[in-house]
């Protein structure tokens, strides 16, 4: 197979509506920023029935519309169906395979349902690899202060506390990475596990930082994508993300138990604030589920948290809605206790993580009310406090990891 310099992977499944825009942005970006590199767009498709691969092949982009001169090597496009367990992970595996076969120097992956992608994203995701020798480029987005609550209240602080890298969006979905990084991913024996289905994002991030690859972040602006399937169940989402997080925690115990402190990682891109759509929240309903959950799941929660922390949570349900606050220290103990219970395999992981939903909603409701009157930076400061708490209590996790 002929050698290429850059591979841009797009995993898709029934994204005919949006993927055209993504492909055009990618094309323009590569042509503008890497005119002398050979680039291939690899669309790894999970058997779409709406003609997604055709859209990829047929999307026309008139280079003369924005460029004075044509690029030396216009980006090729290939669309490949992948085999194996259906899921984003398997799609990425096919992309990694191509990257290794074609000897690509730099790669990136972007979501197929992005509406806010611009040609600059190519520069932002690929240059750190090509020009600065980084192995892994994590994204940074401007998000509404209420968005990304699973990331903000669990995944980001815990990953940061465990591995000492402050990657703000460990499950962002758009990443840049080097050829050796792709090779490393491909060699891991995870492609028959849950990683093949979901959790590939947190897996890529964690493996990169846990194995001491050179990691950086890049600011991409806003991330707006097609509204997710409204039927997508929060419990399933939480289950998938946290199972991935806990499995990695399990795997890398020997690494993270010795990590102390925080390493700053370089951040590229120009930071700016963008206007964001308003977000609708229903705090009452969240608190309602929190309260019934604490009452009805009492025996399960006691088994996980122990009577002491459960007592503290139980005491919260008496607070009226407007004064309701979930203490961050307690939240950290909750998450660490869940991680420990998962580690000890005392309970089916599905039951375990789904029983976290009411507590998570309580914590989220509390955060939304705290953040109601503060700006973006204020909300970030709150998250920073939470991270410190996770770091300070890390010993608890280590000492009880038996």
């Amino acid at each position: 197979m002929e050698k290429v310099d850059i591979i841009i992977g797009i995993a898709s499944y029934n994204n005919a509506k949006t993927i055209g825009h993504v492909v055009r942005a990618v094309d323009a970006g590569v042509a503008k920023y890497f005119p002398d590199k050979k680039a291939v767009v690899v669309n790894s498709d999970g058997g779409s029935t709406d003609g997604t691969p055709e859209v990829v092949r047929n999307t026309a982009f008139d280079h003369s519309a924005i460029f004075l001169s044509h690029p030396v090597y216009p980006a090729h496009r290939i669309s490949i169906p992948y085999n194996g367990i259906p899921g984003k992970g398997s799609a990425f595996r096919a992309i990694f395979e191509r990257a290794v076969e074609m000897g690509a120097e730099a790669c990136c992956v972007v979501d197929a349902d992005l509406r806010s992608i611009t040609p600059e994203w190519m520069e932002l995701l690929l240059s750190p690899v090509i020009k600065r020798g980084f192995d892994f480029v994590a994204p940074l987005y401007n998000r509404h202060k209420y968005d990304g609550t699973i990331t903000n209240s669990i995944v980001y602080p815990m990953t940061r506390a465990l591995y000492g890298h402050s990657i703000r969006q460990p499950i962002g979905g758009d990443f840049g990475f080097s050829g050796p990084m792709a090779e490393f991913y491909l060699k891991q024996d995870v492609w028959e596990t849950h990683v093949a289905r979901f959790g590939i994002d947190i897996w890529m991030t964690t493996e990169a930082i846990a194995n001491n690859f050179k990691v950086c972040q890049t600011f991409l602006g806003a991330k707006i994508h097609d509204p997710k399937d409204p039927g997508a169940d929060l419990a399933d989402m939480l289950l998938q993300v946290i199972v991935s997080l806990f499995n990695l925690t399990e795997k890398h115990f020997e690494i993270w138990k010795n990590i102390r402190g925080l390493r700053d990682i370089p951040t590229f891109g120009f930071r700016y604030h963008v206007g964001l759509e308003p977000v609708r929240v229903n705090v009452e309903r969240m608190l309602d589920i929190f309260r019934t959950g604490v009452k009805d799941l009492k025996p399960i929660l006691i088994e996980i948290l122990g009577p002491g922390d459960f007592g503290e949570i139980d005491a919260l349900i008496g607070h009226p809605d407007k004064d309701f606050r979930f203490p961050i220290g307690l939240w950290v103990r909750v998450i660490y206790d869940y991680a420990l219970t998962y580690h000890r395999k005392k309970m089916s992981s599905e039951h375990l993580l789904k029983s976290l939903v009411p507590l998570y909603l309580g914590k989220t409701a509390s955060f939304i009310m705290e953040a109601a009157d503060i700006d973006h930076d204020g909300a970030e400061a709150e998250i920073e406090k939470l991270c410190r708490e996770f770091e300070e209590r890390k010993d608890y996790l280590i000492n009880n990891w038996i």
Partner: protein
Amino acid sequence: MEKFSEILFQPFRDFWQWFVKFAPNLMAMLIIIIAGLILAWLIRLVMLRILRVINFDTWSDKVGLTALIRKGDVWAKPSDFFGYAVYLLLAVVFVMIGLDALQIKVIDNLLSQFLLYLPRALSAILILIIGYIIAGFLSRGVLIAAVNSGYHHAKLIAEAVRLLFIILVLAMALVELTIARGIVIAAFSILFGGVVLALAIAFGVGGIDAAKRIIEKAREEKKEEKGRDIEHI
């Protein structure tokens, strides 16, 4: 006179003859029982060794088996306890086999019935244990799912699921034991059907208001101001 002595001694002679015929059986019984008890004891020792090696005790502590036997005020180590239970079971079996060696008809019958029944009894116990575990698992899954969808009577539903399942398991165990099969099946059908009907009515009647509220709420929610939901990830 001779006849009288004949009459007098005949029973003794008969007894002697019976005894001579029966003695080997008695000996066999004693040997089987004693050897069996020794064997059972040895098996117990081997089992104890194995249980120690696989850390049965700590496993039992962690899954709560120890706490369960402590509830019955048993304070031996779990491995000792189970070793002893196995010993007792084996001892009973060997005593039975020993009695069989006597070749007394009544005991024979009893024994064969017992042996025939043993596998059924064991499988009934197994059904009960597994059923109990599955019932707990199922009802917990239902409980969590119901809570997460914001249903206020989650506990009730979960208990109902557990109850129904346990009724089913009990019926299965009874059928396995072949105790009055017909009655069990009839009773089960009536009970199970009755519980389902009762629940349906209870939810129906009690749920009219709830359903109304839910529908109204859903309608209101649709009318709510535009905007997207928060993204959790």
